[in-house]
């Protein structure tokens, strides 16, 4: 595969309103940098993230998708992220089974107090996806840019 030096991945981050979105805000408040590639979508809880949304993102040109939620046990809705963990584990395992690169998907627990962690996670994830290059295995050619 041809590696494009100037490749800038598109990364969609689904963040739960109560912990991770607040964690993202905190990394802003603390001026902790992470790449502009990451664009955040606010959802009430990580359990709101439907696998369809993840596939949709890849279809429309995302190169990586990350879901962030409250730490297990800290869910604002008591149990939402436990369901997320099962669903997303199985979904990621299935994507892996279909030969989709593992590093394109991630789930991280980021609390409202973990601004530094949020930035670190996003930096790391962006780097991992950048290394993988553009998403080709789960793309829709009709949506390809250029």
């Amino acid at each position: 595969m041809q590696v494009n030096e100037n490749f800038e991945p598109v990364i969609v981050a689904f963040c739960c309103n109560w912990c991770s979105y607040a964690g993202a805000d905190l990394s802003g408040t603390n001026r902790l940098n992470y790449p502009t590639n990451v664009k955040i979508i606010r959802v009430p809880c990580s359990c709101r993230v439907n696998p369809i949304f993840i596939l949709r993102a890849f279809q429309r040109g995302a190169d990586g998708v990350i879901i962030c939620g409250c730490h297990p046990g800290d869910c604002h809705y008591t149990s939402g992220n436990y369901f997320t963990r099962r669903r997303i584990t199985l979904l990621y395992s299935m994507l892996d089974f279909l030969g989709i690169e593992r590093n394109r998907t991630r789930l991280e627990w980021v609390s409202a107090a973990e601004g530094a962690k949020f930035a670190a996670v996003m930096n790391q994830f962006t780097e991992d996806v950048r290394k993988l290059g553009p998403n080709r295995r789960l793309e829709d050619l009709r949506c390809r840019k250029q």
Partner: protein
Amino acid sequence: MQEAMIKRAKELLADGTVNRVMGWKKGEFVYDTTPAVFETAEELEKEFVCNDFTQANLSKYLIKESRKEGKILAFLKPCDTYSFNQLLKEHRIIRENVYVIGIPGGPKLDMEKIKAKGISGILDVKNENFTLKIETLYGTETMPFYEAVSGKCADCKSKKHVVYDELIGEDGDVLASRRFDMVEKLENMTSQERYDFWRGELSKCIRCNACRNVCPACTCENCVFDNPKSGIDQKAAADSFEENMFHIIRAFHVAGRCTDCGECSRVCPQNIPLHLLNRKFIKDINSLYGEYQAGADTTSKCPLTDYDTDDCEPSIVHERGVE
């Protein structure tokens, strides 16, 4: 077996226990059997069939049938009873309206496998001591029985009836099958190999929806792929992405509910091994959240609507198997 079933069905019709019978109907050829509802003893005599080719899972038809007037008799093979139970659990079948007779299961035969031997003009197929005696227009042919066993029966998981009102024949046991071997083989491939394998398979998909329509877990009133409001409706896959999308989402929607009846792969006209996607989920669920067999009972919690506070993290996907 067929005689005993017809006899019992006629009795139940006669004494008013049921007013319809769900079974299989003879077609033009011996291997050509179709699920059907019979209303009279005459119809039963004339058209009812139960032979080595009556593979179809009848449970899904009972969703609609059990909502009709009166009680219906259904003949269920062991694998069909799992689907039946799962549908009961999801409140899709009204139990009071179905009289279930458990009948022994397969192994059933796959006509394609016989034809693949170059045998054509088939008139009749008889199993004599595990040798198939095949009457054709051109004379009698033989082949070993096991070479013609259908894919779904080859990996049979259970000969036990998990629900029934009465049994014809003996009840069996849950079997130790090797049904996850192929999933495991794929897991041990590299990511690129897996990708190539699935692209090779899924690119054959013509979106005939046979898998969805036959699946006893796919019972939505309106499938998301048919619903314009869902935002992902598609009639035919316009791109490789949509081929993947359809099968990933379908497998995800039945995850934890799929009883592994094997109907999806059986009916696929393109012979895509769709059951492997479902089995991957089953295997993951078993290994990550504890053994679970959908349809084995009507009370246990489906793994996807349940959780444990100590569940593994998704990073387990990264930590195991081959990249």
